[in-house]
């Protein structure tokens, strides 16, 4: 029977209510544990009962020399030691004074109030290693109990996630809001989002920034028989309807991999940010130098970029030279700036080529007093802009007007001299 037919046959089921006075919201009534609670408890999903109801917990311990991909978890402390020495602010900064929690959720959907978090995975330091606590929503009636156990209402923590700023944390806030009559307020916790860091570090180097891609290409970890993330909701929806738990363990493993990878990703990202230049990947190092510049820590940026310039050949170092020139110009080291622009120029993409040429024209016109060179770079830029296809119409005509103005002025100056 078609959906429409079915619904329309239910017409007689529709009753209207006469308006009644609204009854008061009843006080909190502790929900019953689901029917499958004991069965799940027996297979290792520990049944926990708190004031608000029931929640399941799977706890796993890892020693410091536990190997995940090419790292041991203990290397986390080497990373902390590096940050302990770092005086400025940095989005990745995490010191031994911070209480770090690696956090990853699994949810029943992608957005909206009807999407539940059904798994809170929390990976923390513990004596002799790390402990993973995976809290599983017993059923939607027991959500308050589930949220309470996350302890995010307690203490000052640094929450480390992969895309948590836009996904996991807002989802948690939504669930918290719905249970706010009963829960202590959710604390605004400091966050480190390794998705953002990965984008800064591996831009133009990795095609996609999916965690599994980073694992495979960078962290030396390959997942075997991993449950694809998009199947997780279906598994949970089925588990709470049928009480079947087998497939749920696959979701737990998936979540466990995610969290272990976050530790090693943090280790690698830290190493890259701190490392002196080695001969392996100019793109990554240039990205990190640019990151420093954007954080207004240009001394570090310049130092790193100079290192790239010395270590790699001119083609590989072209981006670094270009960025270096920008910084040097800002620091009024005009001679070095011009030199680095010129070094970069033959290898730049068209848009940067135009910008670099204009910068050179400016430098030669105003600072280095070489009007002939200034005119040459101006004309080169003008020619390229006119044939460029990537500008929006308005941007293009503004650019042309600007360059033509410069050209006429340079001509005029030459005439006077």
């Amino acid at each position: 029977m078609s959906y429409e037919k079915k619904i329309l046959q239910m017409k007689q089921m529709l009753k209207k209510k006469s308006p009644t006075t609204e009854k008061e919201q009843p006080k909190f009534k502790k929900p019953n544990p689901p029917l499958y609670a004991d069965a799940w408890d027996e297979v290792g999903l520990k049944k926990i009962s708190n004031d608000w109801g029931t929640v399941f917990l799977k706890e796993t311990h890892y020693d410091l020399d536990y190997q995940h991909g090419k790292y041991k978890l203990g290397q986390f402390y080497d990373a902390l030691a590096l940050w302990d020495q770092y005086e400025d602010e940095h989005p990745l900064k995490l010191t031994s004074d911070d209480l770090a929690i690696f956090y990853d959720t699994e949810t029943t959907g992608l957005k909206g109030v009807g999407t539940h978090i059904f798994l809170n995975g929390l990976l923390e330091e513990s004596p002799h290693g790390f402990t993973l606590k995976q809290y599983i929503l017993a059923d939607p009636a027991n959500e308050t109990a589930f949220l309470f156990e996350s302890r995010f209402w307690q203490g000052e923590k640094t929450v480390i996630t992969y895309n948590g700023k836009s996904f996991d944390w807002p989802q948690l806030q939504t669930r918290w809001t719905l249970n706010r009559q009963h829960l202590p307020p959710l604390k605004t916790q400091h966050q480190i989002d390794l998705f953002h860091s990965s984008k800064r570090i591996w831009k133009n180097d990795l095609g996609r920034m999916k965690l599994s891609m980073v694992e495979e290409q960078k962290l030396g970890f390959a997942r075997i028989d991993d449950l694809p993330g998009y199947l997780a909701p279906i598994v949970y929806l089925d588990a709470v309807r049928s009480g079947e738990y087998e497939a749920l363990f696959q979701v737990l493993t998936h979540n466990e991999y995610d969290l272990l990878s976050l530790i090693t990703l943090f280790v690698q990202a830290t190493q890259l940010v701190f490392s002196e230049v080695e001969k392996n990947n100019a793109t990554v190092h240039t990205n990190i130098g640019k990151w420093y510049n954007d954080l207004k820590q240009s001394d570090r940026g310049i130092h790193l970029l100079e290192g790239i310039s010395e270590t790699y050949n001119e083609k590989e170092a072209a981006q670094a030279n270009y960025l270096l020139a920008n910084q040097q110009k800002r620091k009024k080291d005009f001679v070095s700036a011009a030199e680095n622009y010129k070094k970069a120029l033959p290898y730049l993409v068209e848009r940067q080529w135009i910008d670099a040429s204009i910068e050179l024209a400016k430098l030669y016109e105003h600072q280095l007093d070489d009007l002939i060179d200034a005119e040459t770079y101006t004309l080169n830029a003008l020619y390229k802009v006119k044939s460029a296809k990537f500008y929006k119409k308005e941007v293009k005509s503004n650019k042309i007007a600007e360059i033509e103005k410069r050209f006429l002025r340079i001509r005029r100056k030459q005439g006077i001299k």
Partner: protein
Amino acid sequence: MIREKRTVKQLIDLWQSDPKMQSRVQHIRVLDEKEATYASFPEQLHPSIRKALASRGIHQLYSHQREAFDYATADQSFTAVTPTASGKSLCYNLPVLQGIMENPQARALYLFPTKALAQDQKSEMNALIEAMDEEILCYTYDGDTAPGIRQKVRKAGHIVMTNPDMLHSGILPHHTKWVSLFENLKYIIVDELHTYKGVFGSHVGHVLRRLQRICHYYGSNPVFICTSATIQNPKELAEALTNTTHELIEKNGAPSGKKTFLFYNPPIVNETFGIRRSAILEVKDLAKKLYESEIQTIIFAKSRVRVEMLVTYLKSLTFQKIHDESVRGYRGGYLPSERRIIEKGLRDGTIQTVISTNALELGVDIGQLQACIMTGYPGNIASAWQQAGRAGRRQDDALIIYVAQSTALDQYVIQHPDYLLGNKPEEARVYPENMLILMDHLKCAAFELPFNQGDSYAEFDVDDLLTYLVEEKILLKTSETWHWMSDSFPAHDISLRSASQENVVIIDRTLTGKASVIGEMDRYSAMTLLHEEAIYIHQGTQYQVEELDWEEKKAYVKEVDVNYFTDANLAVELKVISEDKTMKLGKATASFGDVMTLATATIFKKIRFNTHDNIGSGPIHLPPEELHTSGTWLNFEQPTDWTDDDLNGAMLGVAYAMNSFIPLYIQSDRSDVHVVPQVKAIHNNQPTFFIYDRYPGGIGLSERVYDYWQSLIEHVYDHVESCSCQIGCPSCIGAQDQSGDAKDKVLHFLQSFLLEELMK
């Protein structure tokens, strides 16, 4: 060109002495001017609001604005009937601003049917706030709102202006991000109430029910303020839409000048077929005369193409002057800044003529003009009044010219000016009981907040329906609560605007590689109008359907130039499923209930223009469409002296005319209901006319017709009788063979059979 400035009065006098005009103007009606009724400012009105009003020269209110203020501040929901230019925005803006001045936490949510209207009102509101010199934040929130400021709007906006679609899919399903709005919501403003009718209105009614459910959850109990154009049942509509008791403010205190209505019928160019000269050409000529007399005029045309035709033509009047902007087009999609320019141009007189689509009907304020021309009847009285309301400044005389097209409705209106001016505009109805619409929104509501056992959803008791959704694996029931347990996002699957969920998209691929979508059509109409080889006429251009992909709901068309049109036969099987109401009308019986229709497109004919010869035919291969809906039917004993064939022909003619008349009774689009005649209906073996809602589950339209059968048939008779054609034409009973006496038979059937024998 001779330009000679005239007043409206001088122009009317001039036309009255012109024999050509005399023969075409079939009626002249004059509405007298009306003085303003004022009321003083309410005592508690905040000083900074007084200051802002004073800066605009306002020192007292119109009586309806004061009444609105008093209801709102007494926490009484109300609906105000506000014709164009009656100062409606102060009806809601004053209490809202007062509420925020008294409690800076208070919030207001404004709903407008379109984004453009929200933009307009935001500018107006912000101007007022600026004049008050207070810190009140007013924002629009829709698809165009920049992601960067969305958070600010959610958390800090005192006044949020949006549309029902955004509320439905962008706000309600994310209500936890709007806690400060929902906790403190004091007023919900529903502007242009009359636009929320039929399927769309029924959807919006549910969106408002969901909104109230969420407000209740956060502990607020907002007051509804609705404003509506003149319709017959504003209070009833508001109450059905908001599920709240309303007071009605009907008496409008704003003044209006004298209005003269001219009913203009283009001359007949083909006697046999009753075809008149194109209305658009007549409008051109009239507009030219008004332009030459320097009378500021607004012209309404039904489509963008027509607007463009008129703009091009009228601009040629001014081509000699460089940069002459005295003629401007106005279509949907103009930016507020462009509207400001038009508004300013009208004020300072640089713009003389504005040509607009119906977009301007919807409250967009471009100021008042001296004259208004309607190209054709806009489909209902309420719209006609809105268009007419564009003309008329406080003291000035206003001229409104209605130019009729050849269609049945237009001709009816010109024969019956009292229909339009008799001050009885249509009813607007919503039907939240429609099961499919209800089910859609029940899902959304369950997504937004869990249901507890015994909870109602608005006025509905839904425990059984929720149990059904558990079986469908959408909800999960714990001991006494239903929770959403699915990975889908229901609001995305539900569009408020489309009547039938799946429309056929029409794609023009005349130019290879440049295919473009030119329109869409509900799948029911598509069976007869978009089958392969059909000639589809879109804004005056002929297209032939090359391919109809029924699975994908796409029709591919190519522009052609042929001398025929196509006409498809639709065989409709009708089964009565249940009879809910029945009554005797003389010897006939009228009933109302559930029907199931099975429509199959069978064959199509190619019919030559003018001669109406059949020049070819072909089969149509489409699966039958099933529709379970509500309907009303009228059956009677077969007259003994009629053959089945004659009866069939006459009933077809009557059904054709009825189809064009139903919009007169129930404010609806023509495609919302359908008339089917059967010489022998399956369930009673009698000749029967069926009228059913063309939307699954029904939308309450045929239920209205059930009460109107008698007057419907009387009107059909009057109209067919007064039609100027000889043998039947598209304006009355449909195109007929040249030799036939179909029109006589139809009249005879209506008169001697239906009306005299059965209705007595």
